[in-house]
């Protein structure tokens, strides 16, 4: 039997293991691993089951969104912001619109402000229910919490489709207001949904919050202290789970958030259970905001008199919004033409991953998956 032709030498470099780590099992979890929430790879060195080293690898979904935006007009890159964090396209739209409105101060009519708050809080509900569903899937509950969450998410996505035309890629915000008004009867359907949501949350909490296995698997796992979180630039529910009171809806009070009374839940231990519970409690606060907004939304136009061609004067602007994942910021440099000179997105998911290795080292591989689930990343935003 003729020896098989030698396989062509692979052009990629072969990594040599040094002796100190001879006994370790190196596993690369990803990029297509069932629980990495997208194409995200972690090179994990395991001593038995416990994680010794964990190096995240990014870039599998890198589309260079920022270079694209430099080649297009301001309006043309609005639909691309839907694809940043494809779970809450309205929050991304709002962050971009907010930054662009600082370039050219266009007054936003009252009804548009209220509709913006309603859409943002509805996406927060969608994001937090889906996150709790994925988190439970990582814990091993085979799909039941996820499907209860998706049942509610479907209703909200139907509302988005009736208002903006698309379920996930809404492309609904414009500089100075919204693209079009919500159809007749939409507000009543939203009131009905918001009315029925607490019953779903009670059922969800009854299913999850006292379950001994969830308590045992998530408490004291991946503990993040407040100071470490601030220094690592962690924002959003993950920061508040470590006890730091920093919510952009209260700090910047952008849009008309100062008119609504709502509270900010704070965690004490900063472990996976707190991150999970903070999102459950934040959903209840979002419901309060939605009730108040739906109660006193005025009639009127939804689009301010924005200029037909958006050509801002030369300026540098940084606008940020409390997206369900953290602080989503847009840094725009305008140079007087219709195209932005520099268009930078501050991705909360990527920066929240800074501490992934610190949290996972010392825990077992099952916990590494749970910790990654509790950080709530979406690869569209991480890799841009």
């Amino acid at each position, binding site marked *: 039997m003729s020896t098989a032709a030698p396989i062509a030498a692979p052009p990629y470099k072969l990594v040599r293991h040094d002796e100190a780590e001879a006994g370790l*099992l190196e*596993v690369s979890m990803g990029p297509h*691993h*069932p*629980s990495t929430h997208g194409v995200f790879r972690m090179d994990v060195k395991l001593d038995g*089951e416990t994680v010794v080293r964990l190096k995240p690898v990014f870039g599998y979904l890198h589309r260079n969104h920022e270079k694209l935006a430099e080649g297009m007009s301001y309006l043309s890159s609005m639909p691309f912001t839907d694809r940043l964090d494809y779970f809450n396209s309205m929050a991304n739209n709002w962050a971009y619109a907010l930054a662009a409105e600082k370039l050219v101060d266009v007054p936003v009519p009252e009804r548009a402000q209220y509709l913006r708050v309603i859409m943002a809080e509805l996406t927060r509900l969608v994001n937090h229910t889906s996150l709790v569903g994925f988190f*439970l*899937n*990582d*814990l*091993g*509950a*085979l*799909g*039941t919490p996820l*499907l*209860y969450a998706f*049942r509610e998410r479907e209703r909200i996505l139907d509302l988005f489709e009736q208002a903006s035309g698309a379920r996930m890629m809404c492309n609904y915000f414009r500089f100075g207001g919204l693209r079009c008004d919500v159809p007749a009867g939409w507000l009543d359907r939203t009131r009905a949904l918001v009315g029925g949501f607490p019953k779903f949350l009670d059922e969800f909490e009854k*299913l999850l*919050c*006292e*379950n*001994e*296995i*969830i*308590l*045992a*698997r998530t*408490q*004291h796992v991946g503990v993040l202290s407040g100071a470490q979180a601030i220094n690592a630039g962690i924002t959003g529910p993950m920061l508040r789970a470590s006890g730091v*009171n920093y919510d952009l809806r209260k700090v910047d009070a952008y849009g008309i958030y100062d008119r609504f009374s709502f*509270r*900010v*839940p*704070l*965690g*004490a*231990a900063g472990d996976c*259970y*707190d991150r999970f*519970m*903070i999102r459950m*409690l934040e959903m209840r606060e979002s419901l309060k905001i939605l009730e108040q907004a739906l109660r006193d939304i005025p009639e009127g136009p939804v689009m301010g008199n924005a200029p037909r061609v958006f050509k801002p004067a030369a300026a540098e602007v940084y606008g940020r919004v409390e997206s369900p994942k953290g602080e989503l910021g847009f840094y725009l440099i305008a140079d007087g033409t219709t195209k932005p000179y520099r268009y930078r997105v501050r991705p909360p998911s990527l920066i929240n991953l800074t501490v992934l290795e610190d949290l996972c080292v010392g825990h*077992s*591989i*099952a*916990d590494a*998956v749970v910790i990654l689930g509790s950080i709530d990343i979406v690869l569209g935003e991480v890799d841009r």
Partner: protein
Amino acid sequence: MIDTLIHILALTAPVAMIFASLFAFTTWLERKILARIQNRIGPNYINIPFTKFRKTFGLLQPAADGFKMLVKEDIVPHGADRFLHLLAPILALVPAMMVLCLLPFDLPFANESMKRIHAAALDNAVLLFFGITSINTLAVFMAGWASRNKYSLLGGMRAVAQMVSYEIPLVLSAAVVIMAVGSLSAQKIVAAQSTHWFIFTPWGLAAFFIFFIASLAETNRSPFDLPEAESEIIAGYFTEYSGFKFALFFLGEYLSIFAINGLAVTLFFGGGNGPWVQAHPWLSCVWFLAKIFGLIFIIIWLRGTVPRLRVDQLMAFAWKFLMPLSILNLFVAAVALKVQQPWLTWPLCALVLYAAAHGLSRLQQKNVGPRTYQYAE
């Protein structure tokens, strides 16, 4: 000699066929029940080939899956140990199949000589049962090691640790019933329960709980499905299996569920006994299967609700909670059986067992519990 062989064949062949077909039904049942728990409909449109008839409530789904498994290519990884890779699914299936005929499943058409053969040959059915099912641990680890895949290796090692440590509570809780009946033979145990089932005695109920939880771990089902944890190690020991070997693993898993639940029904729920059995003897089969499917519904229901344990918690739960409870249950049952006044011993047994369970669960949940959260304005 020939007619005993024929009788043995007549005894075992129907049992094997009945349970293999029930396997197909159970896969459909599991997908339908899980679907209904998750507010969806489950498979309902499998059209019979070459006919326009479409709405078949998905009953052909197992047939479709089986055919798909036959057609799928059977991939063996480059570096895998080919012989062990092939042997593992066989070793997972054969013990499960063998154990099925130990169950006191008296077939309706069996005449006197068949019954004698069945009774005589298997007077130590329970001991033989545990002996054969422990081969399953070997099969799972062989699959994990032979696939030469890091995830399978992790799955295999987890399986060994889990099955070994849950074998002991399983056997101890069965020992309580054997102590009560005084014989290892399944027929005698069923006969002893003709008046009242062991489940209705406090030590019987505790023994059933331990037995049921340990049987979940033994067959890698729901809270204990660590060897095949999708979210952590892809599919555990059968990551590298595809095609019919993968189907064999599934067949093996489901048959071992039937076997262990059959034993649970024999030990605690009085095998084939049930109302009207004296009038129509063939009803004992129906009762036996009905009780098994009752337990299977609970297993599927658990699978739809409960997340997975971590390996060290799994071990702690077995050694620190189930083990002491089953040993205590052994003593309590011994005292209760010696002192023959049920009105005195039963409440006492119940009290002691409940106190032990409470103490052990507090030990297990030292710094873990629901929390309250404060809000910032």
